[in-house]
Structures are given as structure tokens and as C-alpha cells.
């Protein structure tokens, strides 16, 4: 199980990588969304948002009305934020579940994939 500190550290790195990626910023243009993450093992919730092509800081707790809800283990989220995990694979195996429109779900996967393409 990953604790909050680990998740915060992983997200912070994901955020910096994503916000510095010009292609990714283009990809989320006009896509302002609120995303909730729920962990199944530690029973915690986190909120991130995308606004003006930038990923926000991570907020502990579920804030606002979400456009997408991602549910998985704290370890999976940590690995995903570090770019060590392919969320599509976990999604196709049912280990990560999502709620939201197909378009929004695609964007999240796009962020996780494109952010680490050049690294």
C-alpha cells in the first residue's frame, strides 16, 4: 500500500512532467475537467483538475462534482503517476475502474501515455 506521502510525491512528478509537455498541453486544450481518484485498499479519495491546459495540484479528499472517477489501489495510482504502469492494461483487466464519458476516459489515458513518451 502506498501512503499519502508517496502518492503526493508521485503525482507531483506526474504533474510537472505533464505540464511541461507541449504536445500534451495541446491535447487537453479546452478540456477542463475535475477528476476524482478513489483507492480501494486505503479507502482514500483525491481530487485533481485540469484547467487552462494545466494539471492542478493534488487535493486530498473528494472536492467538487467530478467528470471522471477513477478507482484502483494506491499502489496502482502511485505507479501510474510515476509512469511505471499502463493504466489501459489495468483497465482492460478490470483492476482499475472508471466512471465518465468515453472521451474523458480517453483523455486520462492519453495524459498517462503521452506524458512519458519522450522519457
Amino acid at each position: 500500500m502506498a501512503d499519502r506521502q508517496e502518492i503526493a510525491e508521485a503525482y507531483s512528478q506526474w504533474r510537472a512532467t505533464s505540464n511541461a509537455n507541449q504536445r500534451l498541453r495541446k491535447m487537453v486544450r479546452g478540456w477542463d475537467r475535475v477528476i476524482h481518484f478513489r483507492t480501494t485498499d486505503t479507502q482514500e479519495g483525491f481530487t485533481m483538475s485540469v484547467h487552462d491546459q494545466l494539471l492542478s495540484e493534488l487535493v486530498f479528499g473528494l472536492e467538487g462534482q467530478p467528470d471522471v472517477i477513477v478507482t484502483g489501489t494506491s499502489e496502482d495510482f502511485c505507479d501510474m503517476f510515476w509512469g511505471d504502469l499502463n493504466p489501459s492494461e489495468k483497465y482492460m483487466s478490470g483492476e482499475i475502474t472508471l466512471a465518465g464519458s468515453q472521451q474523458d476516459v480517453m483523455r486520462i489515458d492519453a495524459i498517462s501515455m503521452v506524458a512519458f513518451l519522450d522519457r
Partner: protein
Amino acid sequence: MTTAAGAEPARRAASVGAGSELRRAMGLRTTVSTSTGLAFAALEYLAAAGLVTYVAGDSAWIAIGVAGLLALLAWGFFGELNGMFPTAAAIRLYMQRAMDDRMALSITFTYMTTIILVIAADAFIVGTALAHALGEPGWVAAVWIAALLAVAVASNLRGVQVAGGLQDVATYTVLAATCVVGIAALVRSHQPLHFPLEPLHGHGVGSFVEAVALGVFLFSAFEWVTTNAEEVRRPHHVHRGMLIAIGILFLVCSLATMAMSHVLDHHQLGSAYPQLDLGRAAFGHVGLWAMAAVTAVTALNTFNGGFITASRFVYGTARQGSLPPLLARLNTRAVPWVPVVALGALSLVVALVVSVTHSWQVLVAVGAALEAMIYAVAAFCTLRLRSREPDRHRPFRVRAVKLLGAAGVAVFGALAIVASVTVGDRTNFVPLVVIVIAGALSALYVVKVVPGLQAAEAARRAATPRRRPPRPPAPGP
């Protein structure tokens, strides 16, 4: 808002368990319109007209009713499976849990060809209908087909998606217009129904079975709405929506079929645009144009749903490592552009082949057989998962699953065989050959190519160092 840097323990996700509702969620009305709209493609009119050749026309509703009961059986299976796996990837999940993964992947790829067929069929029908309504020569239909598919591909590449509200309006308008035209055609014929309760009048039992097989096709694709399971407001909306959709489809298809059998001659029933002749019989030239417009609107749902469902599935499968990585490339609008373009190109080729050979009835037969096959597979998976995963949460359960599951496998399997060797009212093995080739290519790909792709992906991962720093060792006791 509390950021990670200044986290407050008191705010420790107290609301995790509370079901926060999505900002944009599909309600029951849109779930019903999606389910009905996906099933009610332009091909529906041709299948309805084709059904009249098997049974005494006025009583076609009986064959459609029997098919509707079978659709209810399929609804039960998809309802249970969707409840267990409420995700767009459900078909992969329940099939890989119920059977060997290679078999599951082969069947899934074969089933995906149905989407290409339906998109191609809709492009062909709309293109042909528009060319006919405008009084243009037959070859112009090919131009319409190419133009329609080009617009569909371009819209998808730009990430344009039909909004739920517009989809509701489009679907309910198509259904209402079909009902009005059907009723008007019946009333204006000034003739009583001939054999409303005698489906076998002048036909054999075998013909009735073939009519039911084709009737199942009228309901097919109602289950595609399960791929929207992640965006509904309430989970039960999916299976409730599918149930309502089956009821609506029964009413509209029965009415359209009875009206066609009543006012159209044999030549018109066998044409690629019987709905236009039905419109003309009801309201003259205005009716013909109205039905041409309605036919074009049906393509909106088919193209919207078909392109999104298929391209996203291909993308997910490529990301999983079972299809070439090329298919997981995204454009700047986060659209998997290679699957979208490939889908458009394949659909165009199929539509043009159909346009040249006038073999649209083969498309109907292939689609009907593949749909019946996937219903049989759903029955099998429901049955198998009851024993393999008895404790998994099932918000919706099929009653007497041993009996109904076995019946589903047998009945839908038999219907798939019947549909695959029948074109029009004659025995024809072309649909079976098409399905066998598609199935064999899928199986060959899964057995020969997928292991290599997966090995390459595993090697790539092994060669990529982990970015996540190792955890510091836990302090000793």
C-alpha cells in the same frame, strides 16, 4: 481546498464512500435512445422488408414478437454480465474469465467485424437512398457513400461526438416518423389486413424459423449500450434501458414490416430503399423525402456509436499489447486516429463492394449470424461464470440460469447457423464463408501474431528502468 503539501488528517477522504455523482451522466431517456438508436440503423428497413418474404406479410409481427422474446433472453444475459462488469471493456472481461483468452480474443475480433458491416451497410443504404430520392444515376450513390464516410471519419478525428440531447431528438424523431409513415401507409391503402394471425399461410415452418432469425437482427446492437455503463447516472439504467428499447423496437419494427408487406410489391420489397417507397405510399413525394431524411438521420447514431465503440476498443486492445502499437497513436484531440481511419477505409471498401454487387442481403445475413453468435456466447459466459465466480456481486441475475443459459446457447447457436446459410429466401453459403474467413483470420492473428507482440512489449518493459524510487527499508523493531 487542501493540497497534498498541506494535507489535513481530518479531511482524510471522509467522502470516499459517498457516491459523488458525475457532472455529465447519461439518464434513462438517453440510455433508451442510445440502445434503440444503435439497433435502429438504416439496415433495419431492409431487414424488415426482407422478413416479409418468409412469412405471410400481415403476420410478420408474430415472427418479430418471437424474435423479441429471444432478445429478452439475450437481455437477461447482457444485464447480468453488465452488472458484473460495468465497463466499456466488459466483453473482454467476461469472455476472458469464462473461456481461454485466445478464444475470447478471436471471438471478439470476429464480432468487431459486425461494426464494420453495419457502418458500411448504413453508408450504402443512405447513399443509395439519397441518390434515388434525387433521381441521380446509380453510380452517384458511390460518391455519396464516400462523402458520408469521409464526413464521419473527419468528425471523429476532430473528436466531435453527438451530444446526448441531440441523440435523443434524432432517435425519437426517427422512431416517431417511422410509426407515422407506417400507420398512414396502412390507413391510406384502404385495405383490411389479410392474414394478421396466420404466419404460416403459404409458408413452411422452416421459413418461419428463418423469419425469426432475421427478426433477431432487428433487435441486434441494442446491447451495445453496455459500453456506456461507465457514464450512466444509475447502474440499473443500462438493463432497464435495454428492456425499454426492446419493447420500442418490437412496436416500430412490427408496424414498419406490416405496412411494407401491405403496400409494397415484391420488387419494392427487394430494393435497397423500401422505406422510401413506404414513405411515398403514405404521403406521396413528401413522404419519400421525409423517409430519405429519416434514413440519413439513422446514420448519425450508427456512425457516432460505431466509430467510437470500435476505435476505442481497438485503442484499448493495442495499449494492452494485443494489437500493434501503431493502433494506439493519438492525435492532438486524443483520438486514436489510426483505428478511425482504418475503420472508415474498411467500411468504404465493403460499402462499395456491396454497391457494385448489390449484395446487401449478404451483409444482413452476416450481421444476423454474428449477432446470434455473440448472443450464444453471452449465454455461455453467463452460465460459465455462475460456476467460476459464484461469489461475484451480481446486481441483476438471470433466473433459472442453467435452463435459460443452455437454451440460449442452443437457440442462438442454431439461429446463427440458419442465418449464415440463408440469403433472401434461398440457401446461400456466402455469409458462412465470410464469417469463417473472418474467424480464421482472427484466430490466426491471435495464435501467431499476438504472442510476438506481447513478448516485444514485455521485453520493452523489462528494458525500461522503473521511475518510481524504491521504498526506504522499514525501521527495525
